[in-house]
């Protein structure tokens, strides 16, 4: 008996050059017909919905308030986006291309798939880390990330909460800020260390290691090289290498991506005058003042290692020779127990 079905043998006899869609398997071809018909139906629905939107936009007078009209238009546009995704999501080639990592992020279906993939693991991971390490209540009251943020130092990815060697983080990282919804936006990028010890006051304060505003990102151009940002129009504080003095507990370095409202630019002079100091930079106040919405978060940590002294020296930071030590807690004086209890 020959191996494989008649169609399989026929397909094998033709050779490996048959395109995937034309493979001569009957059930597969019938399935493709069903899916194509479904796609045409979805495309028709998109057309219908677009015409409805145009009609509603042109409708004057609208029976209702302008806010109601805007709300209805918004939900109709959302429905169009949903239909666009649904039209392509059953295509095996779309699935294949996405799995190969070649998806075009300007198309809604690939953005949808990428978003789903990010939410299935990477978002859970970063949320776990920022909650475990108390980044969220310490730096900002709350965050609901909708943007995928990955940090890499000299081509090496720093996973959420990783300890990064001080020599590696001496240069500014490259961020991949991947939004999943359409359009361009302006964001503010802030790298803040909330664990700077202040021995005199016996407390910790925040320090800003990097702050840049008006960074333009879109789904198709997600890479942001922090060192290449424009000094005049974007950077408020240039990159200060993270360091942890000897004996201090590890420092958290939180990277926040905050979306600016609309396409409004942050006035750098205002930003500079109000938050000129790196030390004692508080992100809450900055975000409130400029009406920034936190949309992405990243996290890495740093601790004292062999390279830290050199890094601090090259960055012109003093204090590499200081070692922090814990205050010795005197034990309570010995108190003799009542002898009558030991009979």
């Amino acid at each position: 008996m020959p191996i494989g079905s008649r169609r399989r043998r026929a397909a094998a006899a033709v050779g490996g050059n048959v395109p995937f869609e034309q493979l001569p398997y009957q059930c597969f071809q019938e399935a493709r017909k069903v899916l194509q018909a479904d796609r045409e139906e979805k495309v028709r629905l998109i057309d219908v919905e677009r015409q409805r939107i145009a009609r509603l936009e042109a409708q004057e007078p609208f029976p209702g308030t302008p806010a109601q009209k805007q709300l209805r238009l918004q939900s109709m546009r959302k429905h169009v986006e949903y239909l666009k995704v649904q039209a392509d999501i059953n295509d095996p080639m779309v699935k294949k291309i996405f799995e190969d990592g070649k998806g075009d992020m300007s198309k809604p279906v690939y953005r949808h798939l990428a978003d789903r993939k990010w939410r299935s693991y990477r978002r859970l991971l970063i949320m776990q880390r920022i909650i475990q390490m108390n980044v969220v209540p310490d730096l900002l009251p709350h965050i609901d990330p909708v943007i995928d943020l990955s940090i890499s130092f000299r081509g090496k990815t720093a996973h959420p909460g990783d300890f990064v060697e001080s020599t590696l983080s001496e240069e500014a990282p490259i961020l991949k800020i991947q939004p999943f919804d359409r359009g361009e936006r302006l964001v503010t990028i802030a790298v803040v260390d909330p664990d700077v010890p202040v021995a005199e006051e016996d407390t910790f304060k925040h320090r800003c290691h990097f702050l840049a505003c008006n960074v333009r990102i879109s789904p198709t151009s997600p890479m942001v090289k922090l060192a290449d940002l424009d000094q005049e129009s974007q950077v408020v504080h240039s990159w200060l290498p993270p360091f942890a003095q000897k004996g201090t507990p590890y420092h958290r370095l939180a990277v926040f991506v905050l979306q600016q409202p609309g396409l409004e630019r942050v006035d750098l002079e205002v930003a500079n005058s109000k938050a000129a100091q790196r030390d004692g930079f508080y992100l809450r106040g900055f975000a409130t003042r400029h009406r920034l919405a936190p949309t992405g978060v990243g996290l890495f940590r740093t601790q004292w290692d062999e390279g830290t002294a050199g890094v601090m020296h090259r960055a012109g930071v003093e204090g590499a020779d200081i070692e922090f030590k814990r205050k010795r807690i005197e034990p309570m004086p010995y108190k003799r127990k009542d002898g009558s209890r030991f009979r």
Partner: protein
Amino acid sequence: MNRLKILRSAPSTFSGLPFRPRASNALPLFRPSLQNPFPIQSQTSPFSSTACLLKRKKQRVKQDIRVRHIKFHLAHPITPRPLRFSRHRALRHWTIHRAWHTHLSQVRRARELDLERQYESMKGACEALRTLGEDGIGYTIARAPEPNEDGTVPLQKAQEGGEGLVVIGGSGKGEGGKELGRLYRLAMEKKGIWQGVPIEYARIQTDTPGREGWDHGWKR
């Protein structure tokens, strides 16, 4: 014959299992090799991922009996091979799966639409009966009130509906009177549905049981 030998050589834990699939005609295409694919790993507590120090403990490592059983049956020659597809075959499989589910959802949608159509049609008929006038033609409808200058609709006016009510068609004499909606009332009668059962036991028929199974506080 070959299969019998295999079965005989299997230990008693295996032969008594009822769920074992006994493929009658087809022998598995790929038999696992004779070597045990799952070498015994050091294991102290069940499902522990910690490696144990073999050199310190001279005795044989204990293994969970359940893990042993799973490994034995997975490695057994008559266990069917795991379902593994090549990339293209998996994609074809996925395509067919998606098409089948698309078809099911289309069928479901068509059925829903049909039910909706029937319901709406019945509702329209009842409404027509309800608004049927004495003369059998006249009926009233609520007309939307005039919009303001800025295009908004006065909500208060729309709800009152007093001046918005107009009579369309017929002689206009059909309004009011006890004959208005008589046919509707007749159609809505529930006579003979709860024969012999007090009406208090009635509950609107739904697909699922009520949230509270019995109203204990009920009194006549």
